[in-house]
C-alpha cells in the first residue's frame, strides 16, 4: 500500500541543497534500442526474425538460433515477478541516497527474464506490467508495475524518480498569452501543480483569457518576455529557485517560406522569439534547475518544449517557421545533454498544425490546444522524452522513418 505523498514543506534556507547524483550511465550501443523505446513510452524487445524468439539483454545474435536478424519490436508487457530484493547498502551514490531500493527479476510471458525496478505494490509470484523508463541519467531501465491499478500508484518513490509528475510541483509556463499556454495552465493545475507561474510579455497589451487567470489560486502571472535577456534574467532572479518544471510555450507562427516573403523582418522575429528566446530561458533558468534535481519532493524535474513536427521536415508553406523550429529542436538536444547531470529531463512535444489562428486556412486534421495540454501532463507523468501529438505528427514521424525523400516531395505540394 502506498502512502500518498504529502505536500512538501517550505524549504529550510539554512540547509545545504543535496546535489543531484546519477545512476550508472554506461550502455552498449545496441542497448539504446531501449532508450528509443523509453523516450516514446513504448515497450520494445529484440525479436529474432528467423525463429521468433525474444532476447534480453540486448545482443548481436539470437541465443536460440544464432541468426543476426535481431530487430527491436513492440513486445507484450506482461510478466511474472519471480524474485525480489531490497538493496540496503548499494555501492552507487545515487542508490545509496535513496535506499531502500527494490528490484526484482521478472519472467516475461514472451520469454526473457528481465531485472527491473519494482513498484512498491508488486508482489512476488504475481503478474506485472513492464515498461521502459528513462532514469535520472537519461538511460533506459525496465520498470515493473502490478497489473491493474492500486491506490496512490503514481506516488511510488521509485516511480517518481522515473517521471516528472506535476503534482505538488511549481511550473513555469513561459507564454500564457496563447491558447495552448492557457490550456496547459489549466491542465497542469488540474494535475495537482502547486503553483503555475504564467509568463506574460508586454503586459500593457490585453489578451483573451486574461480575466480567467487573474485572481486564481495557485496561478501567478509574472512578467516574462523570453526574447528579452534581461526579462528572463530578472524573472529567474525572482523565481528561478522555484521552477520545478518549465513549459516553453513560445509561439510565433507566420506563413511563408523564402521567395514569397520580402525581407527578413518576420524571420528576425521568428528567430528572436523562438530561438533566442530559448537561449535566454535556458541561460536564465537552466543552471538552477540543474542544481535542484535532487531537492526533495518538489525537485526540479523537467523542461518541456512545444515544437512543430515540421522541425523534423520542412513544410514550405510555413518554411521559415519550420526552419526556426528546427533550430529550436537542435537546441533542445543540447539542453537535454546539459541538464542531464541534474537529472532534469527535456521533453519535446511535436504537433502538426494546431487549431489556432495562424493555421486557420489549413484543412483538418488539426490538433486541439487542449490535446497538447493533455499530452504535456501525460508525458510528464509517464517520464517521456518525445511525444507526437495528433494524427499529422504521428504520420510525419512514420513517413520520415520510412523514406525522408518521399516525405520531402509530399510536403512540397
Amino acid at each position: 500500500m502506498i502512502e500518498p505523498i504529502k505536500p512538501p514543506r517550505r524549504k529550510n534556507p539554512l540547509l545545504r541543497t543535496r546535489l543531484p547524483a546519477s545512476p550508472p550511465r554506461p550502455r552498449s550501443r545496441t542497448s539504446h534500442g531501449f532508450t528509443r523505446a523509453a523516450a516514446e513510452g513504448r515497450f520494445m524487445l529484440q525479436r529474432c526474425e528467423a525463429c521468433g524468439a525474444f532476447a534480453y539483454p540486448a545482443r548481436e545474435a539470437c541465443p536460440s538460433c544464432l541468426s543476426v536478424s535481431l530487430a527491436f519490436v513492440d513486445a507484450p508487457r506482461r510478466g511474472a515477478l519471480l524474485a525480489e530484493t531490497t538493496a540496503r547498502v548499494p555501492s552507487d551514490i545515487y542508490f545509496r541516497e535513496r535506499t531502500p531500493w527494490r528490484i526484482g527479476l521478472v519472467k516475461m510471458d514472451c520469454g526473457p527474464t528481465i531485472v527491473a525496478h519494482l513498484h512498491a505494490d508488486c508482489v512476488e509470484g504475481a503478474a506485472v506490467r513492464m515498461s521502459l523508463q528513462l532514469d535520472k541519467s537519461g538511460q533506459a531501465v525496465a520498470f515493473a508495475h502490478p497489473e491493474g491499478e492500486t491506490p496512490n500508484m503514481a506516488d511510488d518513490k521509485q516511480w517518481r524518480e522515473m517521471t516528472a509528475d506535476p503534482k505538488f510541483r511549481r511550473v513555469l509556463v513561459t507564454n500564457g498569452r496563447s491558447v495552448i499556454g492557457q490550456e496547459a495552465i489549466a491542465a497542469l493545475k488540474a494535475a495537482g501543480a502547486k503553483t503555475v507561474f504564467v509568463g506574460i510579455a508586454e503586459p500593457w497589451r490585453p489578451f483573451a483569457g486574461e480575466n480567467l487567470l487573474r485572481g486564481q489560486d495557485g496561478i501567478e502571472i509574472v512578467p516574462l518576455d523570453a526574447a528579452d535577456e534581461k526579462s528572463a534574467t530578472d524573472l529567474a532572479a525572482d523565481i528561478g529557485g522555484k521552477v520545478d518544471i518549465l513549459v516553453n510555450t513560445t509561439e510565433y507562427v507566420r506563413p511563408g517560406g523564402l521567395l514569397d516573403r520580402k525581407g527578413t523582418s518576420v524571420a528576425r522575429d521568428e528567430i528572436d522569439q523562438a530561438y533566442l528566446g530559448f537561449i535566454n530561458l535556458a541561460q536564465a533558468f537552466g543552471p538552477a534547475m540543474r542544481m535542484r534535481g535532487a531537492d526533495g519532493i518538489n525537485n526540479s524535474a523537467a523542461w518541456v518544449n512545444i515544437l512543430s513536427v515540421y522541425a523534423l521536415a520542412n513544410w514550405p508553406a510555413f518554411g521559415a517557421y519550420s526552419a526556426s523550429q528546427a533550430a529550436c529542436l537542435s537546441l533542445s538536444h543540447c539542453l537535454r545533454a546539459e541538464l542531464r547531470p541534474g537529472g532534469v529531463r527535456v521533453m519535446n512535444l511535436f504537433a502538426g498544425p494546431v487549431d489556432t489562428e495562424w493555421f486557420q486556412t489549413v484543412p483538418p486534421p488539426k490538433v486541439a490546444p487542449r490535446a497538447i495540454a493533455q499530452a504535456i501532463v501525460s508525458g510528464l507523468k509517464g517520464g517521456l522524452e518525445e511525444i507526437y501529438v495528433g494524427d499529422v505528427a504521428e504520420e510525419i514521424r512514420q513517413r520520415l522513418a520510412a523514406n525522408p525523400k518521399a516525405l520531402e516531395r509530399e510536403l512540397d505540394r
Partner: protein
Amino acid sequence: MHSNNLLELAGAISSGAVRVVDLTFTLSPDFPVIVLPPEFGQAAPVRIQEISRYDGRGPAWYWNNITFGEHTGTHFDAPIHWFTGKNLPNNAVDTMPAKDMIAPACVIDCSVLAAQDPDFLLTVPLVEAWEAKHGRIPERNWVLLRTDWSKKGWRDYANLRDDGAHTPGPNPAVMKWLVEERGIIGFGNETIGTDAGQAGHFEPPYPAHHFLHGAGRYGLQCLCNLDQLPATGAVIVASPLKIQNGSGSPLRVIALASST
C-alpha cells in the same frame, strides 16, 4: 553678435537660468510600442544584449548590442515615413536640413479634457481658443499636444481595447489647418503615435501622418514632461539618428525653457 548670444545661452544653461527639460522616455524593452494588425510587418521590439560586463567576455568594459525599430519609444517621424511624403526632396532623416532639428514649440494643454475622454481630439476651435490667450502660432514652430498621457501606467498608456487603441490626438481638420494655415514644422504627441488611437477610421486615415509628411513636416511621439514647458517660448532640440534613408529614429528630445 551671434556668437555672444550663443555663449550667453551656454552660460544660462550652465547657471540654470535656462532649464533643459528632457522630453524623452527611457528606451527599454518593456516600453509599449505601436501594435499593427498581425498580418503586417511589425516593428522590432527593443532588445538590449550584453556583450560583456567586466567579466570573461570583456574584463574591463561593459557594452551592449541594441536592436530597435525606427519607430520605437520616443521617436521622430520623417516625411518619407508616409506615402504622402515619399517623393519630396530631403525627406529622410539623413537628408533633412539640420537646422530643422532646432525650433521653438507651442505647447497646447488639453490635459483636463483628455483625462475625461481617452478619444479626445484636438480641434481647430480649441487651438483658436489657445491662440486667443497665447497669440498666433508662428510659422516653423512645433505644436506639442499636452495631455499628461505620459504619466499613466503603461497599460492605460497604451489603452488597447478589442477595437484598437483609445488615445488622444488631432482630428483631420486641425492637422490640415496647422500645416496649411499655420505652417508648423511638426506636431508632437505624448501618446504612441502622432495620431489618435482610433485615427485609422478618420478621413483621411491617420491625418497627422497624412498632412504632416505630405507637406514635408515632422512628427514626434511618446513625449513626456510637457507639463514642465511654458505655453510658448521653449525651444525644442530633436535630432534623429542619421540613418541611411531612414524613416525616423528614436532620439533624445530636449527642450530649452526659461527658468522664470
